[in-house]
């Protein structure tokens, strides 16, 4: 360990990275605790890979500071930093056997052939690839190549492992298996993992700390549960996908509850903590998709006048196993999604085209920061919302 310490805490302070005129990362600060599994999550071009590469030492920040375990590392090589990177395409050396791929960095350090092969075999055993030691990378499947890449990155005993979209080249089945595997390895080794991904489910499945990014900035950095259940901004709410974003004008404030009405007359109410919003100001909120109940609107249009409900027409019904995703179309604006428990749904099944009334409770409404339309455009690049 050239750095002399095993502390894998990462502190990014005011880092900006420009490529020509374009800022890939602007004035970003983030602390990742030692031994954490951190996911950098965002659509392509949000700067998440640039951050990873700056931590890894493959890119130098234009301004700002990066510390690992308290030491400033800008200008140091990856080995001096005690980091190792697993590349998106795995970057296995095509002219070397699996064993020599894994042993490569030990070879550079002048370890004897017997010694480096012994250690490489040990790591290959850890990722259950010892049987393939003598093969060339082209003779392996994607999942096997990934295990070899993992073993190669771990052989230097790094304090931080950086993974650049490690699962994106795998098929669905392997992806699910490998993400569990990565989490297991991280716990076992007790080192910091930083994992870049554009897949929401992947991030919340593995990470202790999820960092949602957009356009070179951090939108929210929090635990997976918090990101999912308590998004800070409309962007995060939309990007994570478990929420419906509502916006409107504050109509009244009473009993520490604000009532907000949107342009179609639908309204929602929410508890107001702290600063009381001014009447007539804009307010953005979100409500979880799985906290919405849907029923057929039987001619009672008046029901939609009620707070925390809206009328619409069923646009799509997608069966998801444990729940049914019902998309409700409103006259204008974005679709409103309700995830209805399967037992509830099949008690009174709906059909596409049905007029329905969606209702929720005021305590499931969250107030969000920032503009109401944040993230609407970028959702398309992100490949839509998953949940």
């Amino acid at each position, binding site marked *: 360990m050239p750095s002399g310490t095993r502390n894998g805490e990462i502190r990014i302070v005011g880092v900006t990275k420009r490529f020509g005129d374009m800022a890939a990362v602007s004035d970003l600060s983030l602390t990742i605790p030692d031994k954490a599994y951190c996911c950098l999550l965002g659509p392509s071009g949000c700067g998440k890979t640039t951050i990873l590469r700056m931590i*890894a*030492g*493959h890119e130098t920040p234009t301004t700002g500071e990066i510390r690992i375990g308290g030491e400033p590392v800008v200008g140091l*090589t*990856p*080995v001096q930093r005690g*980091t*190792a*990177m697993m*590349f*998106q*395409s795995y*970057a*296995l*050396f*095509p*002219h070397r056997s699996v064993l020599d791929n894994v042993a*490569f*960095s030990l*070879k*550079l*350090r002048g370890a004897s052939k017997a010694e480096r092969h012994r250690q490489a075999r040990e790591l290959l055993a850890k990722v259950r690839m010892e049987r393939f030691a003598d093969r060339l990378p082209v003779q392996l499947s994607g999942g096997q190549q990934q295990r070899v890449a993992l073993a*190669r*990155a771990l052989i*230097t005993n790094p304090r931080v492992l950086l993974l650049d979209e490690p699962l994106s080249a795998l098929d669905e089945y392997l992806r699910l298996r490998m993400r569990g595997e990565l989490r297991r390895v991280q716990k076992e080794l007790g080192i910091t993992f930083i994992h870049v991904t554009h897949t929401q489910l992947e991030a919340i499945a593995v990470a202790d700390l999820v960092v949602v990014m957009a356009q070179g900035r951090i939108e929210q950095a929090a635990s997976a549960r918090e990101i999912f259940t308590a998004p800070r901004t409309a962007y995060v709410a939309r990007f994570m996908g478990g929420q419906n974003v509502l916006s409107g004008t504050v109509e009244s404030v009473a009993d520490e509850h604000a009532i907000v009405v949107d342009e179609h007359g639908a309204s929602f109410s929410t508890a107001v903590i702290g600063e009381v919003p001014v009447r007539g100001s804009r307010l953005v909120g979100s409500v979880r998709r799985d906290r919405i109940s849907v029923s057929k609107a039987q001619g009672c249009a008046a029901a939609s006048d009620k707070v925390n409900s809206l009328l619409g027409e069923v646009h799509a019904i997608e069966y998801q196993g444990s729940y049914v995703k019902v998309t409700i179309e409103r006259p204008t604006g974005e679709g409103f999604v309700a995830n209805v428990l399967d037992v509830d749904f099949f008690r009174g099944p709906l059909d596409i085209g049905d007029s329905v009334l969606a209702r929720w409770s005021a305590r499931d409404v969250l107030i969000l920061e920032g503009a109401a339309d944040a993230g609407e455009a970028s959702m398309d690049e992100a490949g839509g919302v998953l949940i």
Partner: protein
Amino acid sequence: MKALPRLASWLQVAPVALILVLFFGLPMLVVVTVSFFDYGQGRLYPTFIFDNYVEIFSSSVTLRLYLSSLKFALIVWAVTLLIGFNIAYFLVFHVRTLLWQIGLFLLCTVPFWTSNIIRMISWIPFLGRNGIFNQTLEGAGITSQPLEFLLFSDFAVIVAYVHLFTLFMVVPIFNSMARIDRSLIEAAYDAGAGPWRIFSEIILPLSKTGIALGSIFVITLVMGDFFVVKTMSGGQSASVVSALSNEISAIQYPPAAANAMILVAIVTLMVSGILRLVDIRKELIA
């Protein structure tokens, strides 16, 4: 039903097979046959004798010619490899945009827009006794009298060969280098490799197929040449093929044919030696 795909594959190989048989197989057969003929007074006698081969192997000139040709081949190979590898390396790893890469690559081919002979002959006024180079040196006060070794010497032969053949080294090396995934270099850096180890552990081994192909081009071209040697050495040096061409102009076809067969055998050995060291098949398939 089964015969049809078979027929289709035969049809697919037919054109290239036909060309190989007509323009390579048959002529070779003729040359082999003629190499066993007897000759005299400008006539050929269809016999089956080994005299032509015996004469070649018992003559001391043969060895001298082969050594001279091999010497040129080796020196030119080394120089073109050095220059070609560096040009390819520069184009692939230092030129950042594709447009510049293509532009500079085309620039390398500009000399090829004129004929070989003109390109070679243009060295003569440059390297000659009162040529541009000597005049420049004298004008600058570096030398007081013209350098004699510049023209009509082995030096001139090598300069011309290098000028003519370097591109044959650049192209295949460029090809295999351009295919090296940049993330491999980053992965090596990540593992702790400095510039020299990245070069020796990653770039060089992954350029091997290109080096092998380029080496085959250059070595066979030099081994098969007589015109450059004759012109640039002013007749002082000779190559295997210059002896062969002398025999042809003297209408001594059988010894020329025997000489050609030996040359083919030796060049084939050299090429198969290279192929044994480097597996170029993956380059050709990919």
